[in-house]
């Protein structure tokens, strides 16, 4: 049976520590390039800080981890790629990017509403010797290609291998935990198979507090968010951009 891997990220638990970003970069051999900036960097997992637009005591801030949303329906990046470097994996629902096939036209980046795709503006380089610390199982990308979150497919590979070695057909989800999920100190990210109704993640994705970014565009993202705070949900649903102002319900002080 085919799985549909996805995540539910509880924004109320996110303290914006950045562990997920670090773990992601380490797992996927993302180089730390001195030339790169916030505009040109490689951050397959990017925690963004947003606020309710108010000031002083009424101000609220929260953190929204942005990664590839692995859109299920009419996936914007898949249909635009001229040479099939992007595809929705049938067995897992993972939207995957093949750097070796990519020609770097960046059409997929313009197509992605989440800006979850990143371009290798430079060849990857590491300080002398540090390439010894690269994670085996993840090939490093070259300059001029697009990359993004592949849901730690190297971990999926080893999970498959382990299953095969023990004669099982299906992988044990305990063996397949993406780096960001594993790293989160508050357990804010829940990863699972959304196709399985009993999976905790799939259940959480159906909770009333759950929502998806730009769901109204209709691309059926498989990354859900969750927050009890009304202003956060209002922000996520609004289309009015950063000018939004929402008063908080709880008064501090």
């Amino acid at each position, binding site marked *: 049976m085919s799985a549909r891997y996805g995540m539910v990220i509880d924004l109320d638990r996110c303290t914006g520590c950045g562990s997920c970003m670090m773990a992601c970069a380490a797992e996927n051999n993302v180089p730390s390039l001195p030339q790169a900036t916030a505009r040109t960097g490689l951050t397959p997992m990017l925690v963004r800080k947003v606020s309710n637009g108010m000031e002083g005591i009424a101000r609220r801030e929260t953190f929204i981890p942005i990664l590839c949303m692995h859109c299920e329906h009419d996936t914007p990046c898949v249909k635009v790629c001229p040479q099939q470097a992007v595809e929705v994996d049938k067995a897992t629902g993972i939207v995957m990017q093949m750097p070796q096939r990519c020609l770097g036209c960046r059409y997929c980046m313009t*197509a992605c509403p*989440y800006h979850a795709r990143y371009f290798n503006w430079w060849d990857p380089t590491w300080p002398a010797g540090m390439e010894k610390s690269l994670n085996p199982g993840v090939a490093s990308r070259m300059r001029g290609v697009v990359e993004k979150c592949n849901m730690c497919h190297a971990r999926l590979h080893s999970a498959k291998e382990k299953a095969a070695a023990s004669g099982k057909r299906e992988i044990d989800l305990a063996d397949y935990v993406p780096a960001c999920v594993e790293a989160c100190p508050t357990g804010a990210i829940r990863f699972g198979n959304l196709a399985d109704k009993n999976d905790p993640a799939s259940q959480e994705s159906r909770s009333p507090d759950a929502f998806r970014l730009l769901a109204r*565009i209709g691309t059926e993202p498989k990354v859900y968010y969750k927050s009890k705070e009304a202003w956060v949900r209002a922000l996520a649903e609004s289309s009015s951009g*950063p000018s939004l102002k929402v008063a908080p319900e709880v008064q501090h002080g």
Partner: protein
Amino acid sequence: MASAVVTNSRLADQKWIARGEERTSLSRFLLWLSPWAVVLAVGIYAAGLCLYYGLNQTNMDNRFAFGLWIFLDLGIIALGAGAFFTGFLVYILKRAELRPILNTAVVVGFICYSGAVAILMIDVGQPLRAWFTFWHPNTHSMLTEVTFCISCYLLVLSLEYIPILLRNRQLRKLPSFLVFEHQLHKLVPVLAGVGTLLSFFHQGSLGGLYGVLRGRPFAFREGFFIWPSTFFLFILSAIASGPSFLMLVTATVEKVTGKCLVPPDLFRRLGFISGILLAIYVAAKSIDTLIWLNITSPSVGFAPWQYYMHKPFGTPILFAEIVLLGLLPAFLLTYRKTAARRGWLLSAAALACAGILLNRFVLTVQTLAVPTLPFDEFLQYTPSWQEVASFGGVIAYGVIVYSLSYRYLPLFAAPKGENTHVSGD
């Protein structure tokens, strides 16, 4: 370069210039070329930097993944549409009176398309893998369509260009070339047909390129079958602006050389065609805009006003695009009184071309600048000198190729015995 023309004097390169044609002295010609040559050289250097060090030489970034270059591609390909459209009118619709500008049309088209392809090759991160598109094409991608059609059409244009090239006085001396040219010339009507078909598709798919972007509500359009409305709008706008651009080019050459190259009424005819098509385009564009603002965009929860709340990309741009640079030139080009006056005609043509360029600019640049996520900001991007230089390089390349073609090839002299090819003449 002044309009004075040196006559009855043997020029250094006289034997290369067609008999009976008068050209300025070689030195003055070179003087005219030299500044352009410099621009081209700088452009090639900049392009070299981008190819050698990669796209970090540009000022594009992860959110502004397309920049000046894509605007250039879309722009010049739209203006180059004059080539296929004139071919179409002459050979398919048998409008023989347009024949005098046919060669110019082909040369201009060739320049625009080769320039665009060159820029595309710099614009992709791994040019050596660009050919994978032909090996593993994704048939659902507009870009695949563009790639196939543009490369095929560039081939067609070269084939159309060759016979003109072979009419050079020296090359004609080689018997085999003469034969080849004659054979090839029989083929030209067919090529024109093929070219028309190809162009129709890629002009369209260039529009589709942005129209299909569901994730960019500013650009996304509903459409017919697999094609978003921009697909058809692009075809229309391209064939509307093509003739106007040809008119401008020819007029410039006449100004520079101080010669009258085409029959005086030709401009009016071109202008009229351009004007009518422009009018149709403006109508279609307005309807499309209304549908988009009132149905398409609200349906995905984007309020129209928010696209235009960011200076300097306010509603004035929309107004300029449709009225100032659309409706107005359409009127000037078709209205008898204004069309009769060369000055009006040309400035109208200029406006029309500007309108098309603005449309391409809005679609390529504003689309990326407008925020999609609720917490995104409006983006700014200024191209790096490398981008600008390679942009200029393409322009210079165009001027140089055209100047050379004009000097050494009989662009405007309709070759004798040719009329027999065309019926109803």
